[in-house]
């Protein structure tokens, strides 16, 4: 039996809006053209709550909460942007730039990268924390795709797309903390993977140049993600 969701009203950034009780703050904000920056969130995939870009302030809650995983409640008062939140987002973004080697000018996703776009939108013109410059591998063993770990932000979108949408669960994350890394199967080369169906969903959900198609130029390497919500919708109807 499907749960009946109720209509609830709330205030986001001083604007009175309404949504269903099973919707998140982020979904309702989107429906009402209120911008909340996101990175690990992607419509059609399960919510992750890892990147912390979408943190918002809810009146009465002791801590900042991620808009993607927090459901709306009647009478909620949400602030999506304040100086404090903005500064936190800038710092988080800056940390993301330091952990790997995001060299935009030499990246095939230059111009089509969500990380780069976020920096532009939030006005991040430099990174205050020291760069770590880790030595990261590039896996080009697959016929059609490349995994460049220098560009990975560990958002887990590829892992979720592979598991939830394709059902292959070829991708996963190994290791801990700053040394975690997206792997293929049990840390094998992508080219030799027996579980990978070469569907390319992981590539197209990847926000940066970490997963890309071979043979595409900078101008061509645009990601297409429109298929996701449709796939999800079709499956729910069935």
């Amino acid at each position, binding site marked *: 039996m499907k749960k009946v969701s109720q209509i609830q009203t709330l205030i986001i950034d001083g604007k009175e809006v309404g949504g269903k009780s099973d919707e998140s703050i982020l979904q309702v904000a989107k429906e009402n053209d209120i911008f909340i920056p996101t990175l690990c969130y992607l419509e059609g995939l399960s919510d992750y709550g890892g990147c912390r870009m979408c943190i918002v302030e809810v009146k009465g809650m002791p801590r900042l909460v991620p808009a993607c995983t927090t459901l709306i409640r009647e009478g909620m008062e949400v602030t999506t942007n304040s100086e404090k939140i903005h500064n936190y987002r800038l710092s988080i973004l800056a940390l993301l*730039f330091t952990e790997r*080697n*995001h*060299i*935009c*000018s*030499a*990246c095939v996703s*230059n*111009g089509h*990268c969500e990380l*780069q*776009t976020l*920096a*532009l*939108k*939030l*006005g991040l*013109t*430099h*990174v*205050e924390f*020291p*760069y770590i*410059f*880790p*030595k990261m591998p590039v896996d080009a063993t697959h016929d059609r795709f490349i995994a460049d770990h220098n560009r990975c932000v560990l958002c887990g979108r590829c892992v979720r797309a592979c598991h939830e949408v394709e059902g292959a669960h070829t991708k996963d994350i190994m290791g801990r903390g700053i040394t975690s890394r997206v792997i293929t199967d049990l840390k094998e080369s992508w080219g030799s993977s027996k579980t990978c169906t070469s569907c390319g969903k992981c590539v197209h959900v990847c926000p940066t140049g970490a997963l890309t198609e071979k043979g595409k130029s900078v101008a061509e390497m645009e990601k297409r993600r429109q298929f996701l919500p449709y796939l999800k919708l079709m499956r729910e109807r069935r």
Partner: protein
Amino acid sequence: MEKVKIATSWLDGCSGCHMSLLDIDERILTLLESADIVYGPLVDFKDYPQGVDVAIVEGAVSSDEDEEKITKIRKLTKILVSFGDCAITANIPGMRNYFPTKELYERAYFENADLNQKRPSIRIPHLLSHARPIHEVVTVDVFLPGCPPPADVIFYSLSELINGRLPDLKGKTRFGR
């Protein structure tokens, strides 16, 4: 009114940012009405002068020479502008940071050399272990990202600086470009 003194400098980079500066074309004349370029690769002055108002510096800090230069520039300058991605993120010069400097010398002077396989005997600047963004070495006042920063943004920024304002670059230029 005394003209604003502008210096430009070039550390470890490709000079592309200076090219982009020249791409503001005839608008440079407008700037020069109220400013002088007192030092840099585009003009012929040997020593970095005293009392520079604005210094725009391209490139990462990669060698001991770069370190000396930027320290001196910082000391003699009011407003220091990190000019372009190499200056701000280490960018391409930073791609050598995953290798020990010894391997870099090997590669440059032995493996890739057909003739004269040896380290130059005349002193060349000593490489630091890492190519670093300028603001990790000295304090920077303005960051102008881009590889290279677009000419329009450079013109806007310089106009603001000449008029004594700090440019607001939010949303105007990004890493890469």
